[in-house]
Protein backbone atom coordinates (compact mmCIF):
# COMPACT_ATOMS: atom_id res chain seq x y z
CA UNK A 1 0.00 0.00 0.00
CA UNK A 2 2.91 2.32 0.67
CA UNK A 3 5.25 1.73 -2.21
CA UNK A 4 6.62 5.26 -1.78
CA UNK A 5 7.28 5.90 1.88
CA UNK A 6 7.07 9.71 1.56
CA UNK A 7 3.40 9.59 0.54
CA UNK A 8 1.30 9.57 3.70
CA UNK A 9 -1.36 6.91 4.06
CA UNK A 10 -5.00 7.65 4.85
CA UNK A 11 -4.38 6.39 8.38
CA UNK A 12 -1.51 8.84 8.80
CA UNK A 13 -3.60 11.72 7.47
CA UNK A 14 -6.46 10.81 9.79
CA UNK A 15 -4.04 10.90 12.69
CA UNK A 16 -2.55 14.24 11.61
CA UNK A 17 -5.99 15.86 11.28
CA UNK A 18 -7.31 14.20 14.43
CA UNK A 19 -4.43 15.53 16.52
CA UNK A 20 -5.31 19.17 15.85
CA UNK A 21 -6.39 20.76 19.14
CA UNK A 22 -9.54 22.73 19.85
CA UNK A 23 -8.50 26.36 20.48
CA UNK A 24 -10.99 26.82 23.32
CA UNK A 25 -10.29 23.47 25.00
CA UNK A 26 -6.56 23.09 24.28
CA UNK A 27 -5.98 19.63 25.76
CA UNK A 28 -8.73 18.19 23.57
CA UNK A 29 -8.11 17.14 19.99
CA UNK A 30 -10.60 16.97 17.13
CA UNK A 31 -10.51 13.18 17.48
CA UNK A 32 -11.31 13.46 21.21
CA UNK A 33 -14.29 15.72 20.46
CA UNK A 34 -15.61 13.51 17.67
CA UNK A 35 -15.88 16.42 15.22
CA UNK A 36 -13.56 14.89 12.60
CA UNK A 37 -16.00 12.88 10.48
CA UNK A 38 -13.65 11.47 7.86
CA UNK A 39 -10.45 11.93 5.87
CA UNK A 40 -10.40 10.51 2.36
CA UNK A 41 -8.54 10.97 -0.90
CA UNK A 42 -10.77 11.37 -3.96
CA UNK A 43 -9.97 10.20 -7.48
CA UNK A 44 -8.39 13.58 -8.29
CA UNK A 45 -5.91 13.10 -5.45
CA UNK A 46 -7.58 15.74 -3.28
CA UNK A 47 -7.56 15.11 0.46
CA UNK A 48 -11.17 15.60 1.53
CA UNK A 49 -11.75 16.26 5.22
CA UNK A 50 -15.24 16.23 6.71
CA UNK A 51 -15.68 18.25 9.89
CA UNK A 52 -18.86 18.80 11.86
CA UNK A 53 -19.50 21.88 14.02
CA UNK A 54 -20.46 21.50 17.70
CA UNK A 55 -22.76 24.55 17.69
CA UNK A 56 -24.12 26.54 14.72
CA UNK A 57 -22.23 29.65 15.82
CA UNK A 58 -19.06 28.05 17.17
CA UNK A 59 -16.43 30.75 16.50
CA UNK A 60 -13.66 28.16 16.51
CA UNK A 61 -14.82 26.44 13.32
CA UNK A 62 -12.87 28.62 10.87
CA UNK A 63 -9.74 28.45 13.04
CA UNK A 64 -10.00 24.65 13.26
CA UNK A 65 -10.38 24.37 9.49
CA UNK A 66 -7.27 26.51 8.99
CA UNK A 67 -5.31 24.40 11.47
CA UNK A 68 -6.35 21.14 9.78
CA UNK A 69 -5.27 22.59 6.44
CA UNK A 70 -1.94 23.67 7.91
CA UNK A 71 -1.33 20.28 9.57
CA UNK A 72 -2.08 18.40 6.37
CA UNK A 73 0.15 20.79 4.42
CA UNK A 74 2.99 20.03 6.81
CA UNK A 75 2.34 16.33 6.23
CA UNK A 76 2.94 16.87 2.51
CA UNK A 77 -0.60 17.35 1.20
CA UNK A 78 -1.07 20.14 -1.32
CA UNK A 79 -4.62 19.56 -2.55
CA UNK A 80 -6.99 19.78 0.39
CA UNK A 81 -10.72 20.35 0.62
CA UNK A 82 -12.57 20.76 3.89
CA UNK A 83 -16.30 20.09 3.95
CA UNK A 84 -18.55 21.18 6.79
CA UNK A 85 -21.05 18.41 7.41
CA UNK A 86 -24.16 18.94 9.55
CA UNK A 87 -26.02 15.66 9.35
CA UNK A 88 -26.30 13.72 11.53
CA UNK A 89 -25.97 16.54 14.06
CA UNK A 90 -22.98 16.33 16.40
CA UNK A 91 -23.75 15.06 19.86
CA UNK A 92 -21.62 15.12 22.99
CA UNK A 93 -21.98 11.31 23.01
CA UNK A 94 -19.27 11.32 20.30
CA UNK A 95 -16.68 12.70 22.74
CA UNK A 96 -14.27 9.86 23.49
CA UNK A 97 -13.51 8.44 26.95
CA UNK A 98 -10.05 9.98 26.63
CA UNK A 99 -11.63 13.35 25.79
CA UNK A 100 -13.85 13.15 28.88
CA UNK A 101 -10.85 12.29 31.08
CA UNK A 102 -8.93 15.29 29.67
CA UNK A 103 -11.88 17.58 30.44
CA UNK A 104 -12.02 16.42 34.07
CA UNK A 105 -8.27 17.04 34.47
CA UNK A 106 -8.78 20.53 33.05
CA UNK A 107 -11.47 21.26 35.67
CA UNK A 108 -14.43 20.90 33.29
CA UNK A 109 -17.20 18.46 34.16
CA UNK A 110 -17.67 16.27 31.07
CA UNK A 111 -21.11 15.71 29.52
CA UNK A 112 -23.11 12.67 30.60
CA UNK A 113 -24.12 10.16 27.92
CA UNK A 114 -27.47 10.83 26.25
CA UNK A 115 -27.71 7.26 24.93
CA UNK A 116 -29.46 5.60 26.62
CA UNK A 117 -31.38 8.85 26.88
CA UNK A 118 -31.39 10.81 30.14
CA UNK A 119 -33.67 13.30 28.41
CA UNK A 120 -36.85 11.94 26.87
CA UNK A 121 -36.95 14.47 24.05
CA UNK A 122 -33.25 14.88 23.40
CA UNK A 123 -33.36 12.99 20.11
CA UNK A 124 -36.61 14.17 18.53
CA UNK A 125 -38.01 12.33 15.59
CA UNK A 126 -34.95 10.12 15.33
CA UNK A 127 -36.73 6.81 15.47
CA UNK A 128 -40.29 7.38 14.36
CA UNK A 129 -39.64 7.06 10.66
CA UNK A 130 -41.04 10.46 9.74
CA UNK A 131 -40.49 11.68 6.22
CA UNK A 132 -40.71 15.21 4.91
CA UNK A 133 -41.14 18.40 6.90
CA UNK A 134 -44.91 18.05 7.23
CA UNK A 135 -45.46 15.00 9.40
CA UNK A 136 -44.38 13.39 12.65
CA UNK A 137 -44.99 14.32 16.27
CA UNK A 138 -43.54 17.47 17.84
CA UNK A 139 -42.78 17.45 21.55
CA UNK A 140 -42.05 20.66 23.44
CA UNK A 141 -40.87 21.03 27.04
CA UNK A 142 -41.31 24.36 28.84
CA UNK A 143 -39.69 25.89 31.92
CA UNK A 144 -36.41 25.11 33.62
CA UNK A 145 -35.67 21.40 33.75
CA UNK A 146 -34.52 19.61 36.85
CA UNK A 147 -31.21 17.97 36.10
CA UNK A 148 -29.37 15.44 38.20
CA UNK A 149 -26.39 17.05 39.95
CA UNK A 150 -23.21 17.21 37.89
CA UNK A 151 -20.26 15.74 39.85
CA UNK A 152 -17.60 18.34 40.69
CA UNK A 153 -14.52 17.78 38.48
CA UNK A 154 -12.23 18.84 41.34
CA UNK A 155 -13.48 16.94 44.40
CA UNK A 156 -16.03 14.52 42.93
CA UNK A 157 -18.86 15.69 45.18
CA UNK A 158 -22.40 15.66 43.81
CA UNK A 159 -23.38 18.46 46.20
CA UNK A 160 -23.38 20.87 43.25
CA UNK A 161 -25.83 23.27 41.67
CA UNK A 162 -26.27 25.10 38.39
CA UNK A 163 -25.44 28.81 38.46
CA UNK A 164 -26.22 29.58 34.83
CA UNK A 165 -27.42 27.71 31.75
CA UNK A 166 -24.75 29.56 29.78
CA UNK A 167 -21.01 29.83 30.32
CA UNK A 168 -17.71 30.99 28.88
CA UNK A 169 -18.31 29.25 25.53
CA UNK A 170 -21.38 28.01 23.66
CA UNK A 171 -20.76 24.44 24.78
CA UNK A 172 -20.55 25.04 28.54
CA UNK A 173 -22.81 25.90 31.51
CA UNK A 174 -21.69 27.25 34.88
CA UNK A 175 -22.04 25.22 38.09
CA UNK A 176 -20.75 25.44 41.64
CA UNK A 177 -19.69 22.87 44.18
CA UNK A 178 -20.91 23.30 47.75
CA UNK A 179 -18.37 20.77 49.09
CA UNK A 180 -15.18 22.47 47.84
CA UNK A 181 -16.77 25.89 47.20
CA UNK A 182 -15.35 26.11 43.68
CA UNK A 183 -17.30 27.14 40.58
CA UNK A 184 -16.78 24.96 37.52
CA UNK A 185 -17.74 24.63 33.87
CA UNK A 186 -19.94 21.79 32.72
CA UNK A 187 -19.80 20.68 29.10
CA UNK A 188 -23.52 20.63 28.25
CA UNK A 189 -25.08 17.45 26.90
CA UNK A 190 -26.50 17.95 23.41
Amino acid at each position, binding site marked *: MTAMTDIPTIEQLQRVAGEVCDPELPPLTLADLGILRSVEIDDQGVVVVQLTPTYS*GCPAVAWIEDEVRRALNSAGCTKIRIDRVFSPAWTTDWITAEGRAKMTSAGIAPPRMLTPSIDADAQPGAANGESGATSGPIAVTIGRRVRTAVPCPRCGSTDTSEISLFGSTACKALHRCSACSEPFDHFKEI
Partner: protein
Amino acid sequence: MTRDQLPLLTYLLRLGDDNLILAQRLGELIASMPELEEDIAVANVALDHLGQARNFYAYAGEIDPEGRSEDDFAMLRSEREFFNAVLVEQPNGDFAATMIRQLLVDAYQVPLYQALSASNDERLAGIAAKALKEARYHLEHSSGWVITLGDGTDESHRRTQAALDTLWIFSADLFAADQVEDALTATGVAADPARVRAVFDTTVTEVAAAARLTMPTDPYQRLGGRTGYHTTHLGHLLPELQWLHRAHPGATW
Protein backbone atom coordinates in the same frame (compact mmCIF):
# COMPACT_ATOMS: atom_id res chain seq x y z
CA MET B 1 -29.30 27.46 -11.94
CA THR B 2 -32.99 26.91 -12.54
CA ARG B 3 -35.87 29.12 -11.54
CA ASP B 4 -37.23 26.16 -9.56
CA GLN B 5 -34.71 26.95 -6.88
CA LEU B 6 -35.79 30.55 -6.33
CA PRO B 7 -38.57 29.73 -3.83
CA LEU B 8 -35.99 27.85 -1.79
CA LEU B 9 -33.68 30.87 -1.95
CA THR B 10 -36.42 33.12 -0.57
CA TYR B 11 -37.26 30.58 2.12
CA LEU B 12 -33.61 30.30 3.20
CA LEU B 13 -33.34 34.10 3.40
CA ARG B 14 -36.46 34.27 5.60
CA LEU B 15 -34.92 31.69 7.93
CA GLY B 16 -31.54 33.41 7.89
CA ASP B 17 -32.91 36.94 8.32
CA ASP B 18 -34.94 36.06 11.44
CA ASN B 19 -31.74 34.85 13.04
CA LEU B 20 -29.44 37.65 11.86
CA ILE B 21 -31.72 40.48 12.93
CA LEU B 22 -32.48 38.89 16.30
CA ALA B 23 -28.75 38.29 16.85
CA GLN B 24 -28.14 41.99 16.23
CA ARG B 25 -30.87 43.02 18.70
CA LEU B 26 -29.52 40.62 21.34
CA GLY B 27 -25.99 41.83 20.71
CA GLU B 28 -27.09 45.36 21.57
CA LEU B 29 -27.99 44.07 25.04
CA ILE B 30 -24.60 42.60 25.96
CA ALA B 31 -23.40 44.40 29.12
CA SER B 32 -26.90 45.81 29.73
CA MET B 33 -28.55 42.77 31.28
CA PRO B 34 -29.62 42.72 34.95
CA GLU B 35 -26.88 40.33 36.05
CA LEU B 36 -23.57 39.00 34.74
CA GLU B 37 -24.96 35.52 34.05
CA GLU B 38 -27.61 37.05 31.77
CA ASP B 39 -24.99 39.09 29.91
CA ILE B 40 -23.23 35.81 29.18
CA ALA B 41 -26.53 34.15 28.31
CA VAL B 42 -27.63 36.86 25.88
CA ALA B 43 -24.24 36.75 24.14
CA ASN B 44 -24.44 32.97 23.82
CA VAL B 45 -27.97 33.04 22.47
CA ALA B 46 -27.03 35.78 20.00
CA LEU B 47 -24.07 33.72 18.83
CA ASP B 48 -26.27 30.67 18.23
CA HIS B 49 -28.67 32.80 16.14
CA LEU B 50 -25.80 34.34 14.20
CA GLY B 51 -24.41 30.89 13.47
CA GLN B 52 -27.79 29.66 12.30
CA ALA B 53 -28.11 32.72 10.04
CA ARG B 54 -24.70 32.00 8.52
CA ASN B 55 -25.63 28.39 7.80
CA PHE B 56 -28.83 29.41 6.02
CA TYR B 57 -27.01 32.17 4.09
CA ALA B 58 -24.19 29.82 3.08
CA TYR B 59 -26.73 27.42 1.59
CA ALA B 60 -28.63 30.31 -0.01
CA GLY B 61 -25.38 31.50 -1.60
CA GLU B 62 -24.83 28.14 -3.25
CA ILE B 63 -28.18 28.26 -5.07
CA ASP B 64 -28.27 32.02 -5.67
CA PRO B 65 -28.28 32.88 -9.40
CA GLU B 66 -26.31 36.04 -8.53
CA GLY B 67 -23.75 34.04 -6.58
CA ARG B 68 -23.98 36.21 -3.48
CA SER B 69 -21.95 35.34 -0.36
CA GLU B 70 -22.95 35.26 3.32
CA ASP B 71 -21.56 38.78 3.70
CA ASP B 72 -23.45 40.02 0.64
CA PHE B 73 -26.72 38.76 2.11
CA ALA B 74 -26.07 40.23 5.56
CA MET B 75 -24.30 43.46 4.70
CA LEU B 76 -25.39 44.61 1.25
CA ARG B 77 -29.16 44.25 1.19
CA SER B 78 -31.46 47.11 2.03
CA GLU B 79 -34.53 47.11 4.24
CA ARG B 80 -37.03 46.00 1.59
CA GLU B 81 -34.77 43.06 0.69
CA PHE B 82 -34.88 41.56 4.20
CA PHE B 83 -37.54 38.92 4.88
CA ASN B 84 -37.40 38.53 8.65
CA ALA B 85 -40.61 38.53 10.67
CA VAL B 86 -41.28 41.98 12.13
CA LEU B 87 -41.11 40.58 15.68
CA VAL B 88 -37.32 40.23 15.72
CA GLU B 89 -36.63 43.81 14.58
CA GLN B 90 -38.60 45.38 17.45
CA PRO B 91 -36.38 47.57 19.62
CA ASN B 92 -35.13 46.32 22.96
CA GLY B 93 -37.10 47.15 26.08
CA ASP B 94 -36.69 45.92 29.62
CA PHE B 95 -35.61 42.42 30.65
CA ALA B 96 -39.20 41.19 30.55
CA ALA B 97 -39.54 42.36 26.94
CA THR B 98 -36.28 40.61 26.00
CA MET B 99 -37.52 37.35 27.50
CA ILE B 100 -41.02 37.60 25.99
CA ARG B 101 -39.59 38.26 22.51
CA GLN B 102 -37.22 35.35 22.98
CA LEU B 103 -40.03 33.09 24.20
CA LEU B 104 -42.10 33.87 21.10
CA VAL B 105 -39.13 33.19 18.81
CA ASP B 106 -38.11 30.02 20.66
CA ALA B 107 -41.68 28.68 20.78
CA TYR B 108 -41.71 29.19 16.98
CA GLN B 109 -38.24 27.86 16.18
CA VAL B 110 -38.47 24.61 18.17
CA PRO B 111 -41.37 23.13 16.14
CA LEU B 112 -40.06 24.83 12.97
CA TYR B 113 -36.62 23.24 13.23
CA GLN B 114 -38.08 19.95 14.37
CA ALA B 115 -40.24 19.82 11.25
CA LEU B 116 -37.36 20.98 9.04
CA SER B 117 -35.02 18.35 10.47
CA ALA B 118 -37.21 15.88 8.57
CA SER B 119 -37.22 18.03 5.39
CA ASN B 120 -36.86 16.31 2.04
CA ASP B 121 -34.03 18.77 1.42
CA GLU B 122 -31.15 17.04 3.19
CA ARG B 123 -28.99 20.14 3.47
CA LEU B 124 -31.80 22.08 5.11
CA ALA B 125 -32.57 19.11 7.37
CA GLY B 126 -28.97 19.00 8.58
CA ILE B 127 -28.84 22.71 9.42
CA ALA B 128 -32.20 22.48 11.23
CA ALA B 129 -31.24 19.38 13.24
CA LYS B 130 -28.23 21.26 14.58
CA ALA B 131 -30.25 24.42 15.28
CA LEU B 132 -33.04 22.45 17.00
CA LYS B 133 -30.79 21.50 19.90
CA GLU B 134 -29.93 25.17 20.40
CA ALA B 135 -33.56 26.33 20.10
CA ARG B 136 -34.68 23.84 22.77
CA TYR B 137 -32.04 25.16 25.14
CA HIS B 138 -33.05 28.76 24.40
CA LEU B 139 -36.68 27.88 25.14
CA GLU B 140 -35.74 26.40 28.49
CA HIS B 141 -34.02 29.68 29.34
CA SER B 142 -36.70 32.07 28.03
CA SER B 143 -39.72 30.13 29.28
CA GLY B 144 -38.03 29.68 32.67
CA TRP B 145 -37.53 33.42 32.99
CA VAL B 146 -41.04 34.32 31.77
CA ILE B 147 -42.51 31.98 34.40
CA THR B 148 -40.24 33.43 37.09
CA LEU B 149 -41.07 37.02 36.14
CA GLY B 150 -44.78 36.55 35.46
CA ASP B 151 -45.28 34.56 38.64
CA GLY B 152 -42.99 36.91 40.57
CA THR B 153 -43.58 40.28 42.19
CA ASP B 154 -46.39 42.64 41.24
CA GLU B 155 -43.88 44.78 39.35
CA SER B 156 -42.28 41.92 37.42
CA HIS B 157 -45.74 40.54 36.62
CA ARG B 158 -46.93 43.93 35.37
CA ARG B 159 -43.91 44.40 33.13
CA THR B 160 -44.07 40.87 31.72
CA GLN B 161 -47.77 41.21 30.92
CA ALA B 162 -47.09 44.58 29.28
CA ALA B 163 -44.31 43.05 27.16
CA LEU B 164 -46.56 40.20 26.05
CA ASP B 165 -49.35 42.62 25.14
CA THR B 166 -46.94 44.86 23.19
CA LEU B 167 -45.08 42.14 21.28
CA TRP B 168 -47.98 39.77 20.64
CA ILE B 169 -49.23 41.84 17.67
CA PHE B 170 -45.99 40.97 15.84
CA SER B 171 -46.25 37.20 16.45
CA ALA B 172 -48.47 36.13 13.54
CA ASP B 173 -45.89 37.47 11.06
CA LEU B 174 -43.70 34.48 11.97
CA PHE B 175 -46.25 32.22 10.27
CA ALA B 176 -47.27 34.44 7.36
CA ALA B 177 -46.90 32.03 4.46
CA ASP B 178 -47.41 32.82 0.79
CA GLN B 179 -47.17 30.96 -2.50
CA VAL B 180 -43.40 30.69 -2.06
CA GLU B 181 -43.78 28.62 1.07
CA ASP B 182 -46.91 26.78 0.01
CA ALA B 183 -45.06 25.23 -2.92
CA LEU B 184 -42.15 24.18 -0.73
CA THR B 185 -44.47 22.83 1.96
CA ALA B 186 -46.33 20.75 -0.62
CA THR B 187 -43.09 19.02 -1.61
CA GLY B 188 -42.01 18.35 1.98
CA VAL B 189 -39.15 20.86 1.90
CA ALA B 190 -40.57 23.67 4.06
CA ALA B 191 -42.33 23.29 7.40
CA ASP B 192 -46.11 23.60 7.32
CA PRO B 193 -46.74 26.97 9.03
CA ALA B 194 -50.15 25.87 10.34
CA ARG B 195 -48.60 22.88 12.04
CA VAL B 196 -45.79 24.97 13.54
CA ARG B 197 -48.36 27.53 14.66
CA ALA B 198 -50.40 24.90 16.52
CA VAL B 199 -47.36 23.86 18.58
CA PHE B 200 -46.37 27.51 19.10
CA ASP B 201 -49.86 28.34 20.45
CA THR B 202 -49.79 25.40 22.86
CA THR B 203 -46.31 26.30 24.09
CA VAL B 204 -47.01 30.00 24.64
CA THR B 205 -50.38 29.31 26.27
CA GLU B 206 -48.81 26.80 28.67
CA VAL B 207 -46.01 29.19 29.62
CA ALA B 208 -48.50 32.04 30.08
CA ALA B 209 -50.63 29.88 32.37
CA ALA B 210 -47.61 28.87 34.46
CA ALA B 211 -46.57 32.54 34.57
CA ARG B 212 -50.08 33.78 35.57
CA LEU B 213 -50.14 35.89 32.38
CA THR B 214 -53.25 36.61 30.34
CA MET B 215 -53.04 35.83 26.64
CA PRO B 216 -53.80 38.97 24.58
CA THR B 217 -57.20 38.99 22.92
CA ASP B 218 -56.80 41.95 20.53
CA PRO B 219 -56.98 40.33 17.08
CA TYR B 220 -54.86 43.02 15.36
CA GLN B 221 -51.62 41.68 13.91
CA ARG B 222 -48.88 43.59 12.06
CA LEU B 223 -47.76 41.50 9.08
CA GLY B 224 -45.46 42.12 6.11
CA GLY B 225 -41.93 41.14 7.11
CA ARG B 226 -41.85 37.99 4.98
CA THR B 227 -42.31 40.09 1.84
CA GLY B 228 -40.07 42.95 2.91
CA TYR B 229 -42.58 45.37 4.43
CA HIS B 230 -41.07 46.22 7.80
CA THR B 231 -41.75 48.41 10.80
CA THR B 232 -39.70 51.59 11.01
CA HIS B 233 -37.18 49.93 13.33
CA LEU B 234 -35.40 47.74 10.78
CA GLY B 235 -34.35 50.80 8.83
CA HIS B 236 -32.51 52.05 11.91
CA LEU B 237 -30.99 48.71 12.80
CA LEU B 238 -29.38 48.04 9.42
CA PRO B 239 -26.95 51.03 9.33
CA GLU B 240 -25.52 49.94 12.68
CA LEU B 241 -25.18 46.38 11.38
CA GLN B 242 -23.82 47.23 7.94
CA TRP B 243 -21.85 50.48 8.16
CA LEU B 244 -18.38 48.99 8.46
CA HIS B 245 -18.82 46.64 5.53
CA ARG B 246 -20.32 49.40 3.41
CA ALA B 247 -17.67 51.96 4.40
CA HIS B 248 -14.81 49.52 3.81
CA PRO B 249 -15.99 47.02 1.16
CA GLY B 250 -14.19 43.71 1.41
CA ALA B 251 -12.59 44.55 4.76
CA THR B 252 -11.28 41.52 6.64
CA TRP B 253 -9.80 41.01 10.08
